[in-house]
């Protein structure tokens, strides 16, 4: 739905008689998803969905209702009546905030015109070509090639309006040999045949180097984490630890924290070239660049409007992407500078182990290699690790250039060289 169509629909909804304040959020997606394994396509799905969320506010009461039939005017009218009827029964909540009423420009940082032309057959053909490359190499390939065309629009009865179209591409591929596997991805707002084949080739190469791994007895050691591993870890750290209110209330690893965490910067920015995103939140707030760590120094964390107003702080909405700066060292140079270490392609199943210290556990996966005297010498058996993100950030000694990663959240992350990383047990 384009800007004018969204504006017309939202205006028509806001004209439905209602008391109090009404906020309207529209989201639409057309997503092609092709999965393959054993070098053949196993699932192929076209998903077309739209969601209309209506939020009613009566003074300090607020409720919402979502429906998915945008062309059913009677249902929309009934839903507006229902959301206000429910709202009257809500107890007061002092944290409810009025709509902002801001009209936002359409930045569309994450819109890619070329991506609009990708069709079912295009995705199928690229997936088939990847499968052929795997078959030619005698390696099992499994993966997902997905491309989504989306829009989001917001309007409120205080006059606010925002709309953006955006794209999201996601290709990841696992290459499996007789005794070891490799993995690679392409993430971003666009994808081309070359991106698919480059990632496929990288996964096949990783797989070739991952056969017949040997045991590295788990111990603290220097690691080089490739961008996906860094992204998975930093995303978990952000959502567990970077909340200003929790910090202020003593419920955060950063409560009473005044140390510096290494020297990297950690921020969110919808205009980030490596992985741009929509520039407004689901309640119509503009998203600008927010810095969470400035060269390792903790800044104000994400702060909602209620907490900001109450405490005289700037509003810093929850972000749509995460970026960790890097010093631009190449992966080869990171390896070359390491005498005794482990190269990690990918992490898996990261979970919190201790909220107070921002401690997490997880596994390595699909390409874990021994580094000795500046060279990758052989693959090693995957390992479990237990480590605090505070310590990881503090122990970064070199880093790469941020690149797009993250299947579930847009991120741009560099490879990191981290000293004293705690591996704790062996996997398979």
């Amino acid at each position: 739905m384009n800007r004018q169509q969204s504006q017309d629909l939202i205006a028509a909804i806001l004209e439905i008689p209602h008391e109090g304040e009404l906020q309207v959020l529209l989201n639409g997606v057309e997503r092609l998803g092709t999965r393959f394994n054993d070098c053949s396509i196993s699932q192929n799905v076209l998903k077309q969905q739209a969601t209309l969320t209506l939020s009613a506010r009566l003074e300090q009461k607020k409720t919402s209702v979502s429906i998915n039939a945008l062309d059913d005017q009677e249902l929309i009218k009934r839903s507006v009546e229902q959301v206000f009827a429910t709202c009257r029964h809500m107890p007061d909540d002092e944290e409810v905030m009025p709509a902002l009423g801001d009209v936002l420009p359409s930045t569309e940082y994450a819109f890619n015109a070329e991506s609009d032309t990708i069709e079912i057959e295009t995705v199928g053909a690229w997936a088939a070509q990847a499968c052929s490359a795997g078959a030619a190499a005698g390696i099992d390939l499994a993966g997902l090639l997905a491309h989504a065309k989306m829009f989001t629009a917001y309007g409120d009865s205080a006059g606010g309006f925002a709309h953006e179209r955006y794209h999201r591409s996601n290709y990841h591929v696992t290459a499996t040999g007789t005794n070891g596997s490799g993995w690679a991805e392409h993430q971003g707002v666009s994808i081309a045949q070359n991106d698919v084949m480059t990632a496929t080739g990288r996964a096949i190469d990783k797989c070739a180097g991952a056969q017949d791994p040997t045991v590295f007895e788990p111990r603290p050691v220097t690691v080089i984490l490739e961008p996906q591993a860094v992204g998975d870890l930093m995303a978990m750290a952000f959502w567990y630890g970077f909340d200003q209110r929790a910090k202020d209330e003593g419920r955060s690893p950063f409560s009473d924290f005044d140390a510096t965490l290494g020297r990297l910067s950690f921020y969110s920015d919808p205009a980030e070239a490596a992985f741009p995103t929509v520039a407004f939140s689901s309640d119509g707030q503009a998203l600008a660049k927010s810095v969470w760590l400035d060269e390792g120094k903790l800044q104000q964390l994400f702060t909602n409007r209620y907490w900001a107003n109450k405490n005289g702080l700037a509003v810093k909405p929850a972000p749509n992407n995460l970026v960790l700066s890097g010093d631009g060292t190449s992966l080869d140079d990171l390896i070359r500078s390491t005498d005794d270490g482990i190269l990690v392609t990918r992490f898996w199943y990261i979970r919190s182990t201790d909220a107070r210290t921002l401690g997490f556990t997880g596994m390595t996966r699909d390409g874990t290699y021994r580094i000795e005297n500046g060279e990758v010498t052989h693959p090693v058996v995957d390992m479990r690790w237990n480590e605090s993100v505070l310590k990881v950030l503090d122990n970064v000694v070199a880093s790469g250039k941020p690149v797009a990663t993250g299947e579930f959240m847009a991120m741009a992350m560099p490879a990191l060289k981290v000293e004293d990383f705690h591996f704790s047990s062996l996997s398979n």
Partner: protein
Amino acid sequence: MFDLLKLACNTASKAGCQFADARYLSIRKQRVVSRDHALSSCSDGDDRGFGVRVLYQGAWGFASSPTYTADEIEKVVAQAMRIARASAMALREDGVKWAPEPALTLDFKSTCRQDPFAVALEDKADLLIAANGVMLKNKSIKRAQGFLSFKRVQRWYVNSEGSELHSDVTSSESAIWAIAVGNDDFQERNWNAPASNQGFECYRKQEFLNQAERVAAEAEEKLSARLSPEGDFDIITDSENLSLTIHESVGHATELDRVMGYEVSMAGSSFVTRDKQGDFRYGSDQVTLMADNTLENGLATQGFDDDGVPGQRWEIVRDGIFQTYSSGREFAHYIGEERSRGSCRADHWSSIPIVRIPNLFLMPGKTPLSPDELMADVKHGLYFEGMDSFSIDQWRLNFQFGGNAVWEIKNGKKAGMLKAALYQSRTPTFWNACDATCDENYWQPHGVTNCGKGDPMQISQMTHGAAPTRFRKIHICRGRDS
């Protein structure tokens, strides 16, 4: 409602599809969330649409739409066939072998004595805010929260083999939790009211108030708990804690699509390869793990799955020996079974069915044994209660789990709470270390409503269960440095 679904299947069959099915879903949801003395949100959802799956020239195609009209049906069938043609660009050499299933007519309705959508919002608010109030009376508690979540899924299913199926399933879920701050620390303790396919009748205010008082007291106690010791110890898991371990180390490990590599690139594969069927020692002879998609009030009890196969009960592990997998119609032939186990489900009308964990539980001990008697035989160990940190590798072998509350056991009795305790093991090592489980009087079900699998991720639900169970010499590590 069936007519348009039949139109979809007939249109696909006439166009040359080997198989077609069509599902229409009406999904109603409500989630009410409390924060301290207020409700922080109340969100309702009403979501309807249909999906058509076709097997055409040996390849799958799937398309869906929220617009339920004859014109749209024909358009979506054409889209599904176009997608199948694209799938055929990289066709599986041996093609799709679809397990036969007789045409079925079935109408399934879950038990729902009190419709949760008819209960006044004030009553839900009262339940949650009263529980929060009890927790906040404890001065260490700086945040009290809770939620009630309800879902009703009405499903109509038709396939080209003549099946016409309908289900109407209502599920309910709730939890409360408290965060205590003090002693240079913060700690969270929760109570999960068992999620199930039932209505509001399963929630009683007095139980919430009783649990709230205990939760707050134990959150406060966690602040001053000792750091866990490390090393090898005997452990006892309560039924909720072990439910998650069953889910991760048995449920996912025995999904046949994973074993066949269909999930390699996302959720992973499994160490339970086909050569292990029938003679692999998964656990000790105390361990019988039963799958049962007919379990009363079980979250995976839906009458039939999204391949059109009725719910079934089967043993995955019997007396410690691995028996068989969870499967769907596309996968049964891989293990020489003529019929699917009926465990293929989709989480939405726009999602394609995939093999999912069934209701799956550890059978209780056959001889009378109480939790006190179970603990009496532990000289120095740990007792894990509730779910906390959980992580497992992509083969479902190496795992590490915590508990929402953990106590040290000394000389057969609880001896104070521990902080940051985690048990780490490998699946067969762990289950072979099981030497006793309490009898049926202590068996409890626990629902899982956030099981993620597939790519894109689909969220499914199922019920697990166990009685308190003992495992000998399990490695204990901790999530916090001393």
